[in-house]
């Protein structure tokens, strides 16, 4: 058996899962199961949000280890599902390493994404629906939707420019809050607070905070604490961005 090939397969699978935003325990478990199915009784994957280490001992007594560095990434539920499905299949069918590797590559290459207009419509809808949910009028929802759309556009542009996460959320929240205040000033919106809350919901790190607490409770302390720090910093940068817009509006229009 080609144990180097197996090590590559396991590390690539883990990389794919983590890159699409899977939880830490899922990545570790998947790697372990895969290696177990291919005849490694004991493997030690160690995963934190930006690093994967896979190590195991071959039956000949050789220790093989691979380290993969993970850049910052988003969440793609569709990819998580497909990688997870592939992992189950590989564990059940145990195909040859070449075939497994090519199936894995296949998933990465045939990534299904929503088209740009659909994505922007989703950003619009998120902000508008939240504004209504918190008690805004329909005009407010329209303003929030515009803010959400601006957030989506800015996020896409800044991601293309490789801006870091905190700068991204600060800039986007400042932009959407400023738009909300400007539209209220022009008379289109009436409750600027609700508009701002609605349009910043797509940026708020509530989700990563919940996931972080979960990791801590599951015993993945390093991963959990890293994610809590990340969530807190993102939250602070959203607040800073919004605060900047509020201050600017006060200077401009005295509201």
């Amino acid at each position: 058996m080609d144990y180097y090939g197996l090590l590559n397969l396991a590390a690539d699978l883990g990389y794919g899962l983590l890159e699409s935003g899977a939880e830490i325990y899922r990545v570790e478990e998947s790697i372990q199961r895969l290696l177990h199915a291919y005849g490694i009784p004991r493997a030690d994957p160690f995963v934190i949000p930006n690093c994967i280490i896979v190590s195991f001992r071959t039956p000949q007594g050789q220790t093989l280890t691979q380290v993969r560095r993970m850049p910052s990434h988003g969440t793609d539920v569709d990819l998580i599902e497909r990688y997870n499905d592939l992992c189950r299949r590989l564990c059940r069918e145990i195909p040859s390493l070449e075939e497994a590797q090519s199936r894995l590559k296949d998933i990465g290459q045939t990534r299904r994404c929503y088209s740009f207009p659909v994505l922007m419509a989703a950003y619009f809808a998120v902000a508008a629906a939240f504004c209504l949910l918190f008690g805004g009028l329909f005009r407010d929802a329209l303003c929030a939707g515009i803010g959400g759309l601006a957030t989506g556009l800015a996020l896409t542009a800044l991601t293309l420019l490789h801006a870091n996460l905190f700068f991204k959320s600060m800039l986007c929240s400042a932009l959407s809050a400023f738009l909300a205040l400007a539209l209220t000033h022009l008379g289109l919106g009436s409750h600027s607070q609700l508009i701002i809350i609605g349009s910043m919901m797509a940026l708020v790190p509530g989700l990563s905070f919940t996931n972080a607490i979960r990791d801590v409770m599951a015993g993945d302390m390093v991963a959990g604490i890293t994610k809590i720090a990340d969530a807190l910093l993102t939250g602070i940068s959203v607040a800073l961005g919004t605060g900047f817009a509020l201050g600017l509006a006060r200077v401009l229009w005295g509201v």
Partner: protein
Amino acid sequence: MELIQTYLLPVLFAFASSAAFAVIYNVRGQGILVCATGGALGWLVYLLSAPLLQSDIAQMFAAAVAISVYAEVMARIRKFPVTGYQMVAILPLVPGGGIYYTMEHAINGEIDAFLASFLHTLGLAGAIAVGVLLVSSSVRMYQSFHLSRRGNRP
């Protein structure tokens, strides 16, 4: 009419926002419907438990538990990882308002109000996390109990 105002409309909006979030997180096909229904269910539980619990932290906890149970059931039925659906369905509960008001108090220099709303927001987020955790830990315990009874300890 009042029923529509207080229950139906918010649930509808929660449904819409979850569906839109599902698109942003690249959920496909029927999964969108599953996520959106989860979001609507969570908000419904949040609203319905108000007279009973009378504290929004406890209500948030109840809603998080309801969504997690729903997500676990749907994951079993559709044979997909549970988290994707759960994450998206929980998003409408995230205390965005709390974060905003905390920030506003901080800018205005109202230290007391700032601290109060900060701790309250933290409490809300914690309630969601604990609710999610309670269900997922219970499910894991149940699964390992089953495995050990069948004699093949993991």
